[in-house]
């Protein structure tokens, strides 16, 4: 269920703005890769190129290659809609569908994939909510609005929605930045569990979080305002946080940045 991502020579643009420059990296399956770096360095932009969400912004485009095992996500015959069904995404702010019940939120992606049988939907929704560590809290109120849950619960609901369609890869864009420490812990526990099944990429501003949850860490930086973001280095998390190759990385993680 998990696939390897290989990125080579990737550039992303917003209209005339060059947002990220020449990024190449490999993301291993069944592992957690964390992206760290200062604001505006292109971490989120890069993350969004991995499921072709970057291009939904008007004027945005991508150059380069993203291979998911042996399939080029930017190949000429590839449908971005199909890519997004394979590479799931969780956003910074929990965004359940506001008018839908908890059940319907989780089932939304399944229905898009043509799953209609009630018994099958029931099974997958239960399995996904259990997978997102949310089942015990919501099993008695599946018909209630998803927007009525707490922020942390909503974020786990969004994770359940993303894993319900059994993606190959799960992208998380600062999934805990709008949450309190208890909810953050719940999500981090969940990430540790999910990495047994999925390839996970997480953007985070919290370096402790990166150190806690990830196997590998990539550090991004930006030379100055208006300059494109670059990948400085990617390595095992323990190495990045103890003995990074690059001086810029060391400055950033020890707080001497800028």
């Amino acid at each position, binding site marked *: 269920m998990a696939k390897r991502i290989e990125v080579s020579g990737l550039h992303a643009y917003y209209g005339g703005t060059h947002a990220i420059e020449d990024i190449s990296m490999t993301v291993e399956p069944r592992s957690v890769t964390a992206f760290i770096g200062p604001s505006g360095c292109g971490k989120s932009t890069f993350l969004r190129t991995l499921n072709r969400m970057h291009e939904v912004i008007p004027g945005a485009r991508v150059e380069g290659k993203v291979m998911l095992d042996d399939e080029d996500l930017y190949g000429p015959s590839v449908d971005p809609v199909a890519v997004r069904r394979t590479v799931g995404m969780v956003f910074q702010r929990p*965004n*359940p*569908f*506001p*008018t839908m019940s908890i059940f319907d939120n989780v089932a939304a992606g399944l229905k898009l994939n043509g799953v209609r049988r009630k018994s099958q939907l029931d099974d997958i929704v239960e399995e996904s909510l259990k997978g997102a560590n949310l089942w015990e809290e919501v099993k008695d109120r599946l018909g209630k609005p998803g927007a009525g849950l707490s922020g942390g619960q909503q974020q786990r609901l969004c994770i359940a929605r993303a894993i319900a369609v059994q993606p190959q890869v799960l992208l998380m864009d600062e999934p805990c930045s709008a949450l309190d420490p208890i909810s953050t812990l719940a999500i981090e526990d969940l990430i540790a569990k999910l990495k047994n099944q999925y390839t996970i990429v997480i953007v985070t501003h919290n370096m402790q979080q990166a150190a806690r949850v990830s196997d590998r860490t990539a550090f991004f930086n930006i030379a100055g305002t208006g300059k494109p973001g670059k990948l400085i280095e990617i390595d095992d998390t323990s190495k990045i946080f103890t003995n990074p190759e690059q001086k810029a990385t060391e400055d950033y993680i020890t707080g001497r940045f800028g």
Partner: protein
Amino acid sequence: MSSQSGVDAAVGARHRAPGRRLSTGQAGDRIFAGAARGSGILVLAIMAAIAVFLVWKAIPALQANKANFLTSQDWNPNATPAKFGIVQLAFGTVVSSALALIIATPVAIGIALFIAFYSPRKLSAGLGYVVDLLAAVPSIVYGLWGLLVLAPHMDGVSKILNTVLGWIPFFGGDSPGKNSIFTASVVLAIMILPIISSISREVFLQVPRANVEAALALGATRWEMIRLSVLPYGRSGVIGASMLGLGRAMGETIAVAMVLTFAPGVNVHILEDGGNTFAANIAKSFGEATSTGRGALIASGLVLFVITLVVNMAARAVVARRKEFV
């Protein structure tokens, strides 16, 4: 609210000399406050004066009426004794407006969705402008177009509808024609299209980016994204827009007056010539009316006023309820 007053307090503190009263008390402020308050009161006073005038003029005619004003199908206020009731007018007004709404709403939603999500960005601005321009065309022009261009073509359409859907009472009848309530509805539909379409478009454009991306990231196509995120969010806004369109359709005068041929009585076969509405009836018969006839027309205008008011209040209630959710 609290931050607003906080800003006011801070601004006030900076401009206030020590020991002076709280209001800055400058002449400009007082003149502006007075002018604003005066304008507000003036509007209410004019509204009240119109209502009083209408009621005052209507009462003598209603007293002279020998038929039931609310249930009679006759409209003979100029005869002696005067006999008039609003049933025929209410029927024509409500049916033509409702039908216009049924025709216009799906088209308007389609236009709004196209402009908001499908058309290239350069095209969408111009397209929105053109649709809004439809609202600026004078209704007399719509009337002329309806009478001279649309009506001749509606003859054939009416006959086909009559043949195919004749089993539905509304589309039944023996002599489908071109100057019918149905033709008037089509003209009205085009007239209310811009208001429904532009409000719907605004609502659709306000759908939070997070909702849109939630659907797209799940692998929704554009249409699936619209179904999952846009339509649920915009539903009450679209309902409000349709109600405003309905209000406009019910009050429309001259275009309907030009298209319809007058025939007495209620005819449920809307493909047949004839029918009448409150506003069209007033426009057509006010000139030759006796004083009782004028009073009767004014009374019918009052009824239209009340119906339109109710529709508008319903629209506002729907739109306001949406604000609570968002």
